[in-house]
């Protein structure tokens, strides 16, 4: 990411252009979701309701938690109908 140390590094107007993806919010969570792919039906409800865009899909269409971004809110675990997601405490 471009570093904005000195005045000369800054744009003339306060314009931000770096995508927020560089901010990892993993440290915000106390619990992280773990998906049991044997139970998961690939219904993508977890993807649909994630406020942090922290659910991606693998080649076979299974959901994958993007742990750099998950804040551990547990909406996915709550909304997963087959209950394939459990919240595990971070060490």
């Amino acid at each position, binding site marked *: 990411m471009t570093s904005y140390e000195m005045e000369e590094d800054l744009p003339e107007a306060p314009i931000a252009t770096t995508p927020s993806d560089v901010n*990892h*919010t993993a*440290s*915000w969570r*106390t619990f992280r979701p773990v998906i049991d792919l044997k139970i998961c039906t690939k219904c993508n409800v977890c993807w649909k309701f994630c406020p942090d865009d922290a659910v991606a899909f693998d080649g076979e269409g299974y959901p994958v938690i993007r742990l750099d971004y998950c804040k*551990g809110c547990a909406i996915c675990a709550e909304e997963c109908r087959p209950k394939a997601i459990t919240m595990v*405490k*971070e060490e």
Partner: protein
Amino acid sequence: MIEIRFHGRGGQGAVIASELLAQAAFLEGKHPQSFPFFGVERRGAPVTAFTRIDDAPIQIRTSITSPDIVVVLDAGLMRTINVTAGLKPEGLLLVNSEKAPDQVETPFKGRVATIDATNIALAHGLGSKAMPIVNTAVLGGLARASGIVSLDSVRKAVERFVPAKQQANVLAVEDAYQHVVNLAVVR
């Protein structure tokens, strides 16, 4: 003058911890000052708070960059934030962690103490599993590890100024104080 810097995450009570410490010091006739650094105050986001304690009125109004004591309410923060930046070599690092002091990964070479405030808080029903409120337990540990305020002053401050669950918080303070804070000499 003693300068203490608290590191926590939104919802863990870091700011209230810094205030309670100030109240406790005041009860002992000291001159306290406590203030938060407001960045993105969001549940879970990193929060910094500061307390100064002196025998005379405090004549400085800046953030604390070379603290005598650093208190870390959430060890997870140490992976992303340099919590011991500027900590005086002869200072104290107190970390809320189940680990023993010498297991704590930190570049700081001085005294390290640990207190398992999370489990103490949960044992006393303070906060939720997702967001335990560890501030009063940490203060109990701080009183024992640093000696800058007495257990009794912390107890009184907590009783009078904690917004809720006064009794449970006082028990957490005593619990943390009794459960020997592992104090390692310079590593």
